Structures are given as structure tokens and as C-alpha cells.
């Protein structure tokens, strides 16, 4: 049953999931969602691809080494706590831009933090699933 249809549908759904995940991330501050949910949904997209087309394809589509993704995500989350330090406030103090942006609403470091969470979760799930599902683990 490894048909073209399955692959195509799989990719389509995956793409939809990815878009949905951004949506979840961005609206998370005001409505259900957020970095965790978003990250999990985004990872779901790649899991779907992996299940239908195998690990190598999913890995290729992700484009980045999941380990790097982890590092970057953690770095982003950590870095979001730094701006406050420059004005003598404690680590992780939320700093906000006064302007209200369309779609995003107010922009501040907590949103950056959430993005970090999103990236880490995406990386984590991909890494775990690729490792457990991958061929490179055979003894």
C-alpha cells in the first residue's frame, strides 16, 4: 500500500500541520496553544512523513540535524532572558515592545522564549522518533 496517494496525502497533511503549528505558537499567549503544542504538532508533521516515507526522507525534509535544532532552541530560549540583564533586571524578565503588531499582537521576549520552546520540542520529538524508528540503530 505504499502508494503515491498515501505519500501525497501524507505530505499534504504534514504541510497543513506545519502551518497549524505556527498558528498555535503565535496565538498561544492569548488562546490555547503555545510553544509546546505548536512544537508537538510541527513534529507530528515530520512523524507523519517518517511513517509514510521512512526516516531518511523525513530527515531530509527537516533539513537540519535535530541535535542542532535542540541546541539552537535552547539557545533561543536562554537568550530571550538576556535583554533584561542589560538593564539590570533579573534573568528572564519579560521585555515588551509597545507597538501592537497585526496577527502577533504585542511582541516581547516571552514570545521569543516560546519560540525557543517550539524549536526544542520540534527537535526533541524528531530526534527521538528518528532514533527509535531509524535503521542506523540496528545492531
Amino acid at each position: 500500500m505504499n502508494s503515491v496517494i498515501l505519500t501525497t496525502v501524507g505530505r499534504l497533511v504534514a504541510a497543513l500541520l506545519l502551518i497549524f503549528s505556527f498558528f498555535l505558537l503565535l496565538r498561544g499567549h492569548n488562546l490555547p496553544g503555545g510553544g509546546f503544542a505548536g512544537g508537538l504538532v510541527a513534529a507530528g508533521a515530520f512523524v507523519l512523513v517518517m511513517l509514510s516515507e521512512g526516516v531518511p526522507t523525513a530527515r531530509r525534509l527537516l533539513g537540519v540535524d535535530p541535535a542542532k535544532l535542540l541546541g539552537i532552541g535552547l539557545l533561543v530560549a536562554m537568550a530571550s532572558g538576556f535583554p533584561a540583564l542589560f538593564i539590570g533586571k533579573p534573568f528572564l524578565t519579560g521585555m515588551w515592545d509597545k507597538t501592537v503588531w497585526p496577527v502577533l499582537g504585542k511582541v516581547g521576549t516571552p514570545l521569543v522564549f516560546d519560540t525557543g520552546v517550539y524549536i526544542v520540542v520540534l527537535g526533541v520529538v524528531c530526534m527521538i522518533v528518528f532514533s527509535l524508528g531509524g535503521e542506523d540503530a540496528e545492531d
Partner: protein
Amino acid sequence: MQIVLAITIGVLYAAAVYLLLRRGVVRVVMGVSLLSQAVNLLIFTAGGIKEGGSPFVAGASTSLANAADPLPQALILTAIVISFGVLAFTLAMAYRADKSTGTDDVDDLRSTDAQ
């Protein structure tokens, strides 16, 4: 309703303990996973449950009138995510233990305790 929840928590704990006491390593992992479900539900219940009052600040008001306590929810969310990571790890560990020791019977993993 809370009493029903308390009983459900008790059953989850019982099932988790039962599975943890099995010898097959996979069942033990399943026990760990059930244990975290039980704990999450316990925090949820212990933190005080509410109906129809999601913790969102609605409209112009700036307070959570008659809404569920958001703090336990945040804690549970953290706990859920952590237990996901832990579950993945224990599965990988179960795999490696099986490969390295050649058995999935926890009773056979005793050489490091014997003298």
C-alpha cells in the same frame, strides 16, 4: 465528582504499581507511564477542579473570575512534557537493556547486586 476522580486516581496508581511489579521490562515501562498519568490527574484534582471556566482573561476584565486555577495546569503541562521525555528515554533504555543483556526479564538483571 471529586470522589469519582479520587477513585480513578487510586485505580491508576494501583494499575501503575501492579505493572511496575511485573518482570517484563516493557510492562515496567508501561507502569512508569501510567504512574505519571496518575500523578497528573492527582495534581489536577488536588489543585481544585472547575467546570466551564478556562483560565483565560476574557474581554476587558483583568482577572480570572470564577475560572479554574491556572497554576496547577501549568505545573501539569510541565509534568506531561517531562514525562514524555522520560518515557521516550525509558523505551530506549529498555531496548538497550534487552540488546546488551539478552533478556527482558528484570529478575535476570541481578548480577550487579550479587556479590
